């Protein structure tokens, strides 16, 4: 019999609104994308100076992951090799790619260059949350709930993961989006395509 895995908690960030498990946590429609991310960092009183060095895609994912995992002591209790992160995204690192290309005209920026890959976000999250298990980043036009549910559930059932952050994070042209779920055995809505689509679309 196929194992079922649950969405233990989830965070959404889009249209300058952040929710957790359907409850509004923070919103400010008047701010630009970068201003909103900065305002959210300040609002939630995060203390991680490296945030300021991150590109906007990483800032988007960082905020979603902090909120998702801050009240999940169980996540920290797993061995690093038992924790995974599977990420989807639409615009890859294009926002930073464009900024880096512009910097070449004067002096190429090393600190922009290091963010010209979308999976750098996964690296940032792995460092922050002690994750050494399976990770992957896939680029789709829009969030593919079927693929995400199938891939994450397969890792949990067959590949030794005991918990997984199932994530969508995207940033382009001032528009930040994130949908992060913590998935594993236990209670909660089943981690399947229908429930993911119901939350995000």
């Amino acid at each position, binding site marked *: 019999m196929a194992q079922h895995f649950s969405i233990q908690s989830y965070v959404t960030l889009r249209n300058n609104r952040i929710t957790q498990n359907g409850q509004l946590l923070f919103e400010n429609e008047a701010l630009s994308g970068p201003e909103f991310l900065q305002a959210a960092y300040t609002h939630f009183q995060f203390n991680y*100076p490296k945030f*300021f*060095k991150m590109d906007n895609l990483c800032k988007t994912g960082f905020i979603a992951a902090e909120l998702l995992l801050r009240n999940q002591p169980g996540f920290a209790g797993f061995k690093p090799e038992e924790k995974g992160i599977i990420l989807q995204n639409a615009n890859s690192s294009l926002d930073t790619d464009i900024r880096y290309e512009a910097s070449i005209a004067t*002096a*190429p*920026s*090393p*600190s922009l260059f290091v963010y010209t890959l979308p999976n750098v976000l996964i690296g940032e999250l792995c460092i922050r949350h002690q994750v050494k298990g399976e990770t992957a980043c896939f680029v789709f036009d829009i969030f593919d709930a079927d693929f995400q549910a199938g891939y994450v559930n397969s890792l949990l059932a067959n590949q030794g993961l005991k918990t997984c952050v199932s994530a969508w994070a995207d940033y382009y042209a001032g528009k930040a989006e994130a949908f992060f779920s913590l998935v594993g055995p236990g209670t909660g809505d089943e981690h399947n395509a229908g429930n993911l689509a119901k939350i995000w679309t």
Partner: protein
Amino acid sequence: MSDLIPTLKVQIIEQLNLQHLKPEDIGDDQPLFVEGLGLDSIDALELIVLLQQKYGIKLANPQDGPQVFKSVKSIADYITAHKK
């Protein structure tokens, strides 16, 4: 030199995205890497870019980097000695 150190602190904060710091938080002799401000190898590259962009100075010998970028004061000393 007296004006250079405060100016450098502002430029370092801007170039390295250290918005959580104010210029007065950085001591003149405070180590910039590892146990000090905790800067990393990417920050070192940004400091090289800063020297080139703001002061027209290219680090002639990369081996000098650790000594030049030891602190704000050591960077100021290097700029004073090499500015054309």
